[in-house]
């Protein structure tokens, strides 16, 4: 079974440029998460989707970040414009809500460097 797929794996941009990340969750998983992970820290939730609905976006900086999950499958996270402080790894995870464990499975992440 394929895991969570993310692209690109690495992205280097200059500040003030836009950037987008894509995530394809595990087939059948209705919940999708975007996390930000700074070096030496644990992941921090940016947004969580249940199917197509964003049920928790309280930590998403909405002035520059946006996300969508069309048709309840793939998702895109966008930053516009990017700032130096946005340099981090952006992780996507998915889970099947309703299962006993609601265990999250993580993708490989996108490492963003803003110059």
């Amino acid at each position, binding site marked *: 079974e394929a895991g969570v797929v993310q692209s690109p794996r690495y992205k280097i941009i200059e500040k003030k440029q836009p950037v987008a990340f894509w995530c394809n969750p595990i087939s059948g998983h209705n919940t999708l998460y975007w996390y930000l992970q700074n070096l030496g*820290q*644990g*992941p921090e*939730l940016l947004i*969580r989707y249940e199917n197509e609905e964003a049920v928790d976006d309280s930590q998403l900086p909405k002035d520059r970040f946006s996300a969508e999950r069309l048709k309840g499958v793939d998702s895109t996270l966008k930053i516009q414009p990017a700032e130096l402080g946005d340099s981090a790894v952006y992780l996507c995870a998915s889970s099947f809500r309703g299962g006993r*464990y609601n265990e*999250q*499975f993580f*993708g*490989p992440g996108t490492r963003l460097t803003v110059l």
Partner: protein
Amino acid sequence: ELKVEQNPLFLSMQEEKNYTIYCNYSTTSDRLYWYRQDPGKSLESLFVLLSNGAVKQEGRLMASLDTKARLSTLHITAAVHDLSATYFCAAVGGTYDKVIFGPGTSLSVIP
């Protein structure tokens, strides 16, 4: 607000030794997760603990949960170099059933 702490944050241990990583969380959580992350890699799920007194073991790793003390432990038995990684615990809480991760414990096993 749910907060998760881990200690130690850095652990250097010799092969064949035993050690324990501690995870404390501040409010009630109905699940506790342990993940492993290798450098430059993503997170790999190790254990999911659901109830008080739960104990799970996989190879040289054993995780336990004490919900009354709001404490989970990850015990490493007879460490080997392959266990070198960062270990995260995560608890669940808040309005939206949010998963909150601890800061991670960076483990180095030295031959």
